[in-house]
């Protein structure tokens, strides 16, 4: 059960390795927006933490504020109250030091650049030197060697997301944030992408936070899952995922996997009524 922890220690030795050290501290975060003069609470008093080298997932119903949580960690939004620290620093530090990789749901590829140039973009922005070999390596990592010179509009949705993931990994970031990266893909492609993502992730093992509404995806990829309720997003429970890595098609077919999917889905369903009392709790 704890096999992956042993692997992790072997791969990244040092005082910070392993699950002991808290890397992200997401401490009592609340976030509310003003929409047409009405206050909408996206997150309410959410606390969790992520260890170095850990893969965690946030799941919850649509509009529960899980993307908001990720955006706060990426320093794209500020919390209304509460504090976030990453390695003891405010979240802006990660992006300023080019130590953050984000894959967005809208892949946000630049249409005037080809695959190689899109993957090279983080190097051009950070001013870090890069060799053609390194770009080729990243392209082959996501299996797009033949499409190196293709422009985004010539690629399928799955291929665009792979470019987006390669770009997020380009600078070997300490922290990888994945905001529903496969949300717009069909079920078959999505499953294949999950297997590929696990393989890619295992090569670097950056601390990773995945936001998804798909229970199977979270269970297949993550070490730990945070379940959020509907609006306002509150932390309902935290689930440790026991499957050994590397996880395979067989893992997904196992009875235990299905039982966990059912259990988690039931937990999520129980949050579906949340929006009603959420409105009441506003006053």
């Amino acid at each position, binding site marked *: 059960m704890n096999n992956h922890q042993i692997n992790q220690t072997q791969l990244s030795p040092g005082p910070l390795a392993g699950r002991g050290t808290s890397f992200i501290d997401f401490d009592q975060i609340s976030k509310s927006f003003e929409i047409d003069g009405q206050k909408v609470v996206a997150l309410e008093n959410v606390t969790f933490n992520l260890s170095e080298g850990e893969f965690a997932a946030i799941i919850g119903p649509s509009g529960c504020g899980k993307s908001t949580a990720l*955006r706060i960690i*990426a*320093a*794209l939004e500020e919390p209304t109250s509460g504090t976030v620290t990453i390695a003891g620093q405010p979240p802006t530090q990660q*992006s*300023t*030091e*080019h130590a*953050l*990789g*984000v894959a*967005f749901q*809208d892949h*946000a590829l*630049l*249409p*005037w650049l080809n695959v190689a140039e899109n993957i090279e*973009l*983080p190097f*051009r*922005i*950070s001013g870090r030197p890069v060799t053609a070999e390194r770009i080729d390596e990243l392209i082959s990592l996501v299996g797009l060697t033949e499409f190196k010179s293709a422009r985004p509009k010539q690629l399928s949705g799955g291929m665009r997301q792979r470019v987006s993931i390669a770009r997020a990994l380009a600078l070997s970031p300490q922290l990888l*944030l994945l905001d529903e990266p496969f949300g717009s893909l069909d079920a078959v492609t999505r499953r294949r992408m999950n297997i590929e993502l696990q393989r890619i992730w295992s090569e670097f093992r950056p601390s990773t936070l995945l936001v998804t509404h798909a229970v199977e995806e979270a269970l297949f990829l993550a070490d730990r899952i945070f379940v959020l309720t509907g609006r306002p997003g509150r932390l309902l429970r935290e689930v440790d995922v026991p499957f050994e890595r590397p996880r395979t098609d067989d893992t997904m077919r196992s009875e235990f996997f299905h039982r966990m999917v059912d259990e988690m889905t039931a937990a999520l369903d129980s949050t579906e009524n949340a929006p009603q009392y959420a409105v009441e709790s506003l006053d």
Partner: protein
Amino acid sequence: MPSNRWIKNALPGALGILLFLLIWELLGRTGVLGLTWPPLTSVIATLIDPSKTALFLRATSASLTSAGTGYLAGGALGLVAALAGHLIPTLQEGLSRFAAVVNSVPPIALASVFLVLMTTESTPTAVAAIKVFFIIFIAVQSGLRSATPAQHDLFTSLGTGRFKRLWLLEVPTMLPVAMSGLKIAVPVALIGAFVGEWFGASRGLGVLILNAMQNFQISMLWSAVLLATLVSLAVYFILTMVESIVRLRLT
């Protein structure tokens, strides 16, 4: 079949133009609209009359020179002003209002002011420049804002500095929009030059039109108008092709 479809698309347009020209010719031949409506054939005859070629060439090159100079100067000013407003937010609103005020002054009124301020020969250039300035200013300004929020989020998450964001994101998204502005500004620059020429310039298509009108040289007047239209259409067509190349490359 593609060739079939092409004929199907182009045929109604071609027939429409032919019909228009035919009606023009007939109206001129019958003279129902009076002496001021000459038949098309006599307009074309004047236009290609070898004794007038030098005159037309001189006028066209004079107008193209002042329109072109005004176009480049106005375009450069518009680009610089839009970039300044974009990079220095405190300038933004003032610049937008200034541009809007300048644009709302009618070209005729502008020309008379310029006439007092500078020579009759530079007035066409100045009027063309002012009209082009506004179009390019607006196009560049909105083009610089046309990157998507997700693209901006990406650049923020990568810790991008201001000038790299401008150069790697905002300028590439601006170019197609600026290109549309450059295209629209072509006929506007020519109109500006013609209007400017009415205020005492010594040569140009505007001068030719004005003289022909005052001396009741009807087919000369129409020839000059036709020539002005053809020149404007030709430049517009060239820029339409450049625009489609830019769009193909950048979007």
